């Protein structure tokens, strides 16, 4: 734990692995062979183990990354907002090509999937400081300033929060004024069991997108005998198109901290850790400042909030660029300073989580909601929303609409209403909850957004993002972008996800090239289902969701993409392309 008084339990050395690697990466621009040797000695590991960790996270490099390391977002939303132009401009202005460093070592250009700024694309991170709403002129200006020696920190943008909508009549749950300590004072009057009852009444469910009842998770951790216990906040918001947690942490860091304290109090935990994705380095100081303020006010630390025998402190752990670390067990592995590979379901985190000790992991939004529920009382909270799905939900809207940003909607709003609020421009295809979610067609615009009926498929259960695409967008291109994303971000531990995503991408390219026929579509569907049924974690299980839905919902579109003059004799084989390499030896 940071610089606090709680020192009963010391986290083992290896948990510092990511921090050490970050230090080296940020000071030297890369991780040298000697560093690996040294770290192996410090942590008493074999070198290959350190190497394994360093090579897992894409923000760690083994070769120099230049004085100014530029990560350009290549998510699909960036793509439709002019990614290619920015990419070309960057290459022309810096003299480097993507994936490498220019000759003088001033600029390193790299691609990275969604950096949580989908409402202000195209965007990039330079030395992990955000630059938003890029255009050719702005890029030229930025690069020339950097060439003249300006630091990225001094010229970066402060990303706008873009909170576009909250429920009318001041009914906002998340964004109304937050007075530090009010929720904690109310909590103090309740026994832990009563807190759980309150959370149960509010029907709060995991806002990361799995919707597991929060009270069940907390209760399961509360009854564990092993000590100490941990509260982990999952701020690894990696799902492309999602940025609600970014806005929450930027504006509501305090309600997040209080939510974690409430959870810690309820389950009897001593430690809280916020696992913040590497893309959000620029938010870290905000969280650190808030934590410091809470410590100073006696609301964190020894006997915090003047509750006897309740010691609780929070630290922030930086991730290092890996989508799969948003999976809770992968996140735990990463916290322990290992490769972010999801664990099997042999134990649940509430039994054996971080360091094999009882751990509650919740999303940023869940903790913020929990603090607000205790603050306002479950009775008031359940007035909002619809029966069976009370409260409000944050949705990150991006893509083809006039007003991209955060929408706090009451559960029960229809897709059509939301599209109207954000002034969507001829919407045709909507990706709900990111690439791993589901896609819906505009024909379904009267479906409600709620936590209900996932299986009945009447309502849409949204994890937190809407990416809107109009009719001009090429669906196959969208799906290929997703498939490339999953191929890159798969951890590689299980066969169906590691090989499957690669295979699916090959097949999709066939479709893009106009070589596919009906059999290919059927195979895509059946292979996607195999991945879904057999993958180890959510990544592989959901990677082909959108693809499978899209083939059903946009059947006509796919039918038109096929190579329909299949002659029975010949699957497509392009002799000219296959002999092209040889033709250059023609005399």
């Amino acid at each position, binding site marked *: 734990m940071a610089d606090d008084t709680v020192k009963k339990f010391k986290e083992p050395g290896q948990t510092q692995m990511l921090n050490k690697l970050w230090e080296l990466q940020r000071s030297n621009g890369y991780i040298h062979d000697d560093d690996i040797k040294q770290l192996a000695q410090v942590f008493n590991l*074999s070198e290959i183990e350190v190497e394994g960790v360093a090579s897992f996270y894409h923000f760690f490099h083994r070769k120099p990354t230049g004085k100014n390391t530029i990560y350009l977002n290549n998510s699909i939303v960036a793509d439709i907002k002019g990614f290619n132009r920015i990419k070309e401009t960057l290459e022309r202005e810096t003299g480097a090509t993507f994936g490498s460093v220019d000759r003088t070592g001033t600029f390193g250009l790299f691609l990275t999937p969604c950096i949580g700024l989908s409402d202000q694309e195209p965007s990039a991170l330079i030395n992990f400081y955000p630059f938003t709403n890029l255009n050719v002129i702005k890029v030229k200006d930025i690069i020339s300033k950097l060439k003249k020696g300006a630091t990225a920190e001094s010229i970066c943008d402060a990303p706008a929060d873009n909170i576009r909508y909250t429920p009318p009549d001041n009914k906002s749950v998340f964004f109304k004024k937050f007075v530090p300590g009010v929720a904690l004072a109310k909590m103090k009057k309740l026994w832990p069991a009563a807190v759980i009852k309150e959370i149960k009444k509010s029907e709060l469910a995991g806002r990361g997108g799995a919707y597991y009842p929060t009270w069940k998770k907390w209760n399961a951790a509360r009854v564990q005998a092993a000590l100490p216990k941990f509260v982990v906040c999952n701020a690894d918001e990696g799902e492309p198109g999602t940025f609600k947690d970014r806005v929450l942490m930027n504006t509501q860091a305090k309600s997040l901290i209080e939510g974690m304290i409430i959870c810690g109090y309820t389950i009897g935990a001593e430690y809280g850790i916020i696992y913040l994705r590497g893309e959000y380095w620029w938010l870290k100081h905000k969280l650190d400042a808030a934590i410091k303020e809470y410590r100073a006010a006696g609301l964190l630390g020894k006997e915090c909030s003047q509750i006897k025998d309740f010691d609780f402190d929070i630290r922030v752990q930086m991730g290092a660029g890996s989508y799969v670390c948003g999976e809770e067990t992968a996140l735990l592995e990463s916290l322990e300073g290992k490769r972010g590979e999801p664990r099997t379901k042999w134990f649940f985190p509430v039994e054996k989580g971080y360091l094999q000790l009882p751990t509650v992991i919740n999303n940023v939004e869940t903790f913020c909601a929990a603090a607000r529920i205790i603050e306002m009382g479950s009775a008031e909270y359940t007035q909002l929303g619809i029966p069976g799905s009370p409260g409000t939900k944050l949705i990150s809207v991006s893509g083809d609409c006039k007003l991209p940003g955060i929408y706090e909607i009451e559960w029960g709003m229809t897709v059509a209403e939301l599209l109207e609020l954000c002034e969507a421009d001829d919407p045709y295809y909507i990706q709900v909850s990111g690439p791993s979610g589901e896609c819906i067609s505009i024909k379904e615009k009267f479906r409600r957004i709620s936590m209900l009926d996932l299986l009945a498929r009447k309502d849409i259960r949204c994890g937190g993002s809407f990416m809107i695409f109009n009719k001009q967008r090429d669906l196959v291109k969208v799906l290929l972008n997703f498939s490339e994303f999953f191929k890159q971000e798969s951890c590689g531990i*299980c066969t169906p996800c590691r090989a499957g995503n690669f295979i699916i991408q090959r097949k999709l390219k066939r479709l893009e090239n106009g070589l596919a026929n009906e059999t290919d579509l059927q195979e895509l569907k059946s292979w996607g289902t195999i991945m879904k049924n*057999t993958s180890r974690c959510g990544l592989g299980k959901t990677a082909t969701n959108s693809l499978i839905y899209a083939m059903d919902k946009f059947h006509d579109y796919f039918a038109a993409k096929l190579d329909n003059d299949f002659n029975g004799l010949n699957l497509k084989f392009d002799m000219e392309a*296959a002999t092209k390499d040889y033709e250059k030896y023609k005399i």
Partner: protein
Amino acid sequence: MASMVNLTIDGKNFQAEEGKNLMLVAKENGIFIPSLCYYEHIEPPLGSCRVCTCKINGKYGPACTEKVSEGLKVEVNNEELKDTRKALVEMMFAEGNHICPACEKSGNCDLQHMGYELGVSSTRFPHLFKDRIIDYKPNRMVMEHNRCIKCLRCVVEVVTNDGKKVFNYLNRGNETYVGVDYEQEAKLTEEEAINAMKICPTGAIIVRGANMAEPFGDRKFDMESVQKNYNEKKPKLNRPTAMEKKIVATVSLAGCFGCHMSMLDIDTELLDLIELISFDKSPLTDIKTFTNRCHIGLVEGGCCNSENVETLRKFREHCDILVALGECSIWGGLPSMRNSIPLSECLEEAYLNSVTNEPGNNIIPYHEDLPKILDRVYACNEIVKIDYYIPGCPPDANHIWKAVKNLLWGEEYSILYSEFKYD
């Protein structure tokens, strides 16, 4: 002592100790659940290969990470699950570069063995032909990355005396591979190194000088199936039984004629066969062009040049049933070893830079009458529709003719375990 619980597997009732691993419970009760990563004493179980996927209380999940509990309902052997498991093994064959005939581990290889057990004759997935290296640097071992299925066994199991890992995953996604720590590897004893080779379910970890201790043919998986009644259920085909005379065509494309040699290996039975079939275009008759429509065409070898492609297309045109015979025609086989190397490098190495060539005196042959070399070796099903596959390098003679007789006359057949071989 743990209490006993009741569970059902495929509708049958069993009793087992509470909390015991489902894989073990199934094994003890004679139920075969295929797996490649499961290793009894590793806890928690690895759960990386996913081949043991079953339906557990109605949900898909791997058997190896399931603790048995009261009332557990497990489905193991329905058609969908069998197909799913087979698909996963096929995925491993498509992802790696598994060339059984050239592999030291053949016969002792769990992956190859699982291929036989699940009846994998070809993979439904496109071969990815990813370029992978062979690491010769370790002191005592050779790490063959082409063959690794990333099961995690060696990563978890092989540690030095001071508890340090010898193997670990590097990179992620489809770039993941198992790296060796040379320093730690040197500390292993000979026995420990051999153990590492043994726990590897494929031929990825090879210990120099110790890999040929057992002769081919006498190895663990060479003669017997672990599944009881493996050959019992074969789909019956309803075809007329009258043995009218049929016409057969055969060809060897990018192959070695080994499969043709194997066809002759039924010896005297060949005389019976010749009463029933006549050969049209075939190297056996030396007929160069099709003179009749054929009932069945047997294709050996994949396509490495334009002439192969044209011949194969002709076969598709003139044959009712087209059978890919042997590994090379199924997925490229040995010739496809060049698929991860650019064509120019292959040609230059062969014609220009080889040690027997006089520098500056040679050219890469190109003439309009010569077949054009393709950028890579293509499997037959990438060029035309293939109806059936007979795996093996070469397939056993009995296997070939049993399959052909079945296809032509619907004759019942049962292929022995020893006849179904990849090498």
